[in-house]
């Protein structure tokens, strides 16, 4: 299966029929958020039109239907990442909220002054800031796995970090700036030898490649729905069931209880004890539909498609003068992301001029300021691909970059 099999795919995404400044949208910012196929959009309107009601409580037909749709989505998503059971899946707002849940509910109860948390230098702010806050509160130390110039992690001193009172390790599966795939299975297995609990930020991996949480053996695993064709406002925390069962809730209120008196309460079973209040029902349903859509394409085909686009882009851009791709030397990449500098043109100018050609790219630090510092640049321009991109998008980006040069020099 090659690029040609994905060729008609833009028709599935209504936004691509829209004209912007008289041109079709060239969307190259899927690492930020992805466009939505008709099936996902329709599942949202269909829920509100046909069975809108609250879940888990209703005795009447539409509430039973709504509950089924919500819990079926959990099943679909659990299978998609090969979870041992759908009860290991907690719906959150996004990966960020899932990380905050773990730092508030698990770290608070299990780490104490003098313990350390291990992170990497390539983390998105979402997998950095929550740990800074809890570390300050509990007087924990944070140690960092460093990165080398090609964007890969430096892993030869891992044991030194583990031996420094490490109790918890949180790292990204795939870099949102460079697309680097980290060897998480290996790192997690070594961490477990030291009794260290692990979290994987999979926001940039689950959308782009097949993942198997049982094989990875992470204790916590988080991702966001909107980066994988689903709606915004829905994300997932996966955790091993015994961990969830031994963890105190993060948010308290309705639906997360089994019994309530005026003075005390007992908690509902997992995962519902972590889903206080009416959840994002339609978000979960939409994400389930997005997973159906990805399953139809096949995740190995998705991965292959992105790698083929990446190769095509590299070949095409080799003609451009003073064009530098960050992390280019690292072969272990999803292929979904190209972060680049182009002469001394500032990324904001590049993005503005490309916008004039209806090409959407991201310019800035990509919520990874420490990584930018490491790369020695204040910002990069990032083009990121997904299932609906094709060679013509890359050709238009190429033409757009030539226009950038002609405007700015």
């Amino acid at each position, binding site marked *: 299966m090659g690029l040609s099999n994905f060729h008609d795919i833009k028709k599935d995404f209504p936004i691509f029929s829209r004209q912007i400044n008289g041109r079709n949208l060239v969307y190259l910012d899927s690492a930020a958020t992805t466009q939505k196929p008709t099936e996902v959009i329709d599942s949202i309107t269909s829920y509100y039109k046909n069975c809108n009601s609250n879940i888990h409580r209703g005795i009447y037909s539409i509430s039973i239907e709504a509950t089924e749709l919500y819990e079926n989505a959990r099943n679909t998503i659990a299978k998609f990442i090969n979870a041992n059971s759908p009860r290991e899946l907690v719906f959150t707002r996004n990966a960020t909220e899932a990380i905050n849940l773990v730092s508030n509910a698990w770290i608070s109860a299990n780490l104490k002054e003098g313990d350390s948390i291990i992170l990497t230098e390539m983390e998105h702010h979402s997998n950095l800031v929550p740990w800074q806050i809890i570390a300050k509160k509990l007087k924990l130390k944070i140690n960092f796995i460093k990165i080398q110039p090609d964007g890969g992690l430096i892993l030869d001193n891992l044991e030194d970090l583990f031996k420094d009172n490490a109790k918890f390790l949180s790292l990204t599966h795939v870099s949102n700036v460079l697309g680097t795939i980290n060897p998480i299975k290996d790192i997690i297995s070594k961490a477990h030898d030291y009794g260290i609990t692990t979290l994987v930020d999979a926001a940039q991996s689950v959308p782009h490649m097949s993942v198997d949480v049982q094989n990875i053996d992470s204790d916590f695993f988080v991702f966001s729905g909107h980066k994988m064709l689903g709606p915004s406002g829905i994300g997932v925390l996966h955790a091993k069931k015994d961990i969830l069962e031994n963890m105190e809730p993060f948010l308290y209120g309705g639906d997360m209880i089994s019994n309530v008196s005026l003075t005390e309460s007992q908690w509902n079973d997992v995962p519902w004890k972590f889903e206080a209040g009416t959840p994002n029902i339609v978000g979960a349903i939409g994400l389930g539909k997005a997973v159906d859509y990805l399953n139809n394409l096949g995740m190995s085909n998705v991965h292959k498609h992105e790698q083929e686009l990446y190769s095509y882009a590299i070949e095409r851009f080799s003609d451009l003068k003073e064009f530098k791709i960050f992390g280019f030397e690292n072969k272990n990449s999803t292929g979904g992301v190209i972060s680049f500098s182009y002469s001394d043109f500032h990324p904001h100018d590049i993005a*503005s001029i490309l916008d*004039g050609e209806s090409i959407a790219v991201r310019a800035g630090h990509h919520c990874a300021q420490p990584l930018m510092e490491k790369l020695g640049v*204040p*910002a990069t321009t990032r083009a990121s691909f997904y299932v609906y991109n094709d060679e013509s998008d890359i050709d238009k980006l190429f033409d757009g970059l030539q226009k950038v040069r002609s405007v*700015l020099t």
Partner: protein
Amino acid sequence: MSDDIYKEIILDHYRNPRNKGKLDGAEISAQDNNPVCGDRIAIDIKLEDNVVSDIKFDGEGCAISQSSASILTDMLVGKTVDELSKFTKDELLEELGTPSLGPARIKCALLSLKVLKIGTYQYLGTELPDDPEN
């Protein structure tokens, strides 16, 4: 937004910035950066009898932020400190010739004005308003 914002005056000042550098013994000195994109501007001003006698800016960033600083500094020689504190964004944007910058890029264009205001208010010892560049 598009390349419409790259007017000739902006590109001219971007390619050949005026008043670029630093001033020793400046009475007014300030810098700030735009955390979203990493643009940085520093401004030094020398005063004689409360009037701007020399001004330089330093920094790095996009064409809009750097040309705006160049254009702004060009407009300020001969102005009194009081005039600096009252200088408006409309005066700067009019000179830039780009009324339709849009919310994403307006911050780039107004960074130099924000730095000017920070320095001037510091010099006057008065409290900086919440949105000094507006």
